[in-house]
């Protein structure tokens, strides 16, 4: 069964997920989403917390994808089967070993040819 996963250290704290989620019921944008991004120390930490299994109130952009996942720019949110989520997590770890770009974005959000196999550290993509 697909469910929502969070890769916390990819989250940049933009709160797009939370802001869009808050609007799904009544078209009002606020901070009251089923996903909320906690910032316990100003902007030093961003911690997405879910109160949702991914059966989205209203998938705005693609019927198969929860709204929060569609809007997340970094790839910090996944809606996957457990095995697929684990695979993504491993891909991220491998990408990070190879290139520091993936400190700040998930390889599956980087839309270039070497998406699956980035160049070695120090090279420019």
């Amino acid at each position, binding site marked *: 069964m697909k469910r929502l996963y969070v890769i916390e250290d990819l989250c940049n704290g933009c709160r797009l997920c939370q802001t869009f989620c808050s609007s799904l019921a009544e078209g009002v*944008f606020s901070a009251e989403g089923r996903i909320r991004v906690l910032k316990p120390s100003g902007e030093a930490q961003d911690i997405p917390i879910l109160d949702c299994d991914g059966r989205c109130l209203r998938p705005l952009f693609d019927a198969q994808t929860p709204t929060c996942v569609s809007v997340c720019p970094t790839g910090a949110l996944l809606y996957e089967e457990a095995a697929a989520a684990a695979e993504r997590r491993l891909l991220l770890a491998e990408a990070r070993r190879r290139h520091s770009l993936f400190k700040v974005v998930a390889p599956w959000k980087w839309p270039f040819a070497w998406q699956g196999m980035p160049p070695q550290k120090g090279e420019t993509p």
Partner: protein
Amino acid sequence: MRTRAAAEQTILRVNLSNGTMRREPLPAEWTRQYLGARGMHSRLLFNEIPPHADPLGEENILYFGAGPLDGLPVGNGRMSVACKSPRGTVAEGSFGGFFGPEMRRAGVDYIALHGKADRPVYLYICDEHAELRDASHLWGLTTDQTDDALRRELPDADVQLRYIGPAGENGVHASVILGNRNNSGGRAGCGEVMGSKKLKAIAVRGTGGIGVADYPAFVQAYQTYRQRLDLATSRDAWTPVWSTYGAPVLARLFAEQGNLMTRNAQQMHWESDKAVRISAEAYLDRYVTKAKACFSCPWPACQKLHTIPDGEYAGWQGGNYWAGQPVVFGSLLDIDDLDFVLALSILCNRYGLDIFHVGFTLAWAMECYEKGILTRADTDGLELTFGCRDRQGLLELVRKIALRQGFGALLALGCSRAARQVGKGSERFCLAVKDQELEAIAQRSFYMVALGVAVSEVGPDHTRWYPPYPCNPNLLPPEELAALGIHLDLKKAFEGRNPEEKGKLLRWFSISRAVVESLPGCVFLVRDTLGLDMRPWWQMFRAATGMEVDYFEFLKAGERVINLERAFNVREGFRRADDHPPYRMANEDVPVFGFRRLSPDIFDPMLDEYYDAMGWSLTTSIPRAQTLQALGLADVAAALQACGVEVEA
């Protein structure tokens, strides 16, 4: 939950002199005419700050303003801060972060700070509640200390803060206002004015929601906007680079092309191994710990947090490395040690100093030192050479600028005033316009930049137009561009060193950016066609506010804003003669590359073309009566005339 309509715009007026406060709605038609944020501020500044008011006196007003799209997932948390600058011009700047949306959720879209407090205070707003609190215990603290102290005092983790550091308190030239630790704004004078009002900080917390008039239409418009900006779909080579690496890739690209200001722009090229050492790639490898973003930004990592991992500054933390730092603390000073570049920049943030002021003023002082105009007797013993070996001494000097101590007191005046005080020809290598330091982009290779820097109402500010890497104009066929109201020979317009079409191009860029900054949205998020085809912005504005306004009427808001800002300056006495490039750019050719100086035969026709395109007098730069009339600003023409300004028909 309390819900407000996106179109609603309320101002909280705070009188710091006597502590009174009131909230009042702004006229609904102003939203149509000026949109919000920067636009609304242009109207408020012109109406409310009396001509020739003392910028550091009771009459100056400091505004913080959000706008109709703030709090919605496209406003990007951008907001505007504005006042009359101590340099006499209008001062306006844009902030990122999360403060704007929090204001909107608290039911306050603008904050106007009138008068002056007699002791340090901070303003605390929580939904309907607002109060001035004592800030004696915060006065003198650096910005990171202030952030920590206020977070302890206001235990709600989501409270949003804006504050000044010691530089603002001490009235140091160009000091900035900061928030979220690493987001700064208002270098045109807002930090100095905030300090003069003894206002250390503003804290705001709001729990309401914002409703849009037509939700499905809003979501649809968002989809188009997002498509233009998303890494996967944007048709713009800059999108992936900028949204992850960031603009410092430019230093490396520019270093060998004669486009990088080096040693106070005495040279325009830099050894490429030096540029590589301070490049965006080096930054990402060694320092970045985490991606960051402003509220609802569609990009993964335009902002970052960094920590210097080891060495002399081990453990120093900060955020963001943008196009400015590699120039102002890198090539301009001939420093190729990224640890040190970041340390300088972290220190500026802590003290609330503007990096452009500090970088250009240090570079000027280094050139003075090199030429013997300043000696160790002036610099408190510091060996102030380019590439400065005495790192500790240079950091200490930055601190002394913020505290106005010793040699720092001279540099705290800003480059222009310092040069006037020192004399001996040092004015010729002071890189400033309207007494404000330049920014990082080369002028003699990018004429549009030179023109934009010269005419900008707030002094040099690259966010007012486009940097020289504009969106790809080939994405739109000429007929479509013409239908969008863009009548330009784009090929000529985008040729860096061709003066033709630059005035018209700058007009379009200034107007379109004024629109974005008034909605507000982020001026970096105009990639793909979003800077030429503004319809997605227009559709989001209409869907959010429910206001029926046609496309060209919507764009006119940007034109009004620039005319109002120009009118403000005109009323203060600024004229055509104030719109010029710095001496070095106008009088020296670029060594090695031979790019020509911006002599009158190059520069004047561009300026004429710009004024003409704007409908301003060619001789004075004063907006003409018919221009103002056509924009519905007849009252502005009348107000200028009432002050004795000669407005041409």
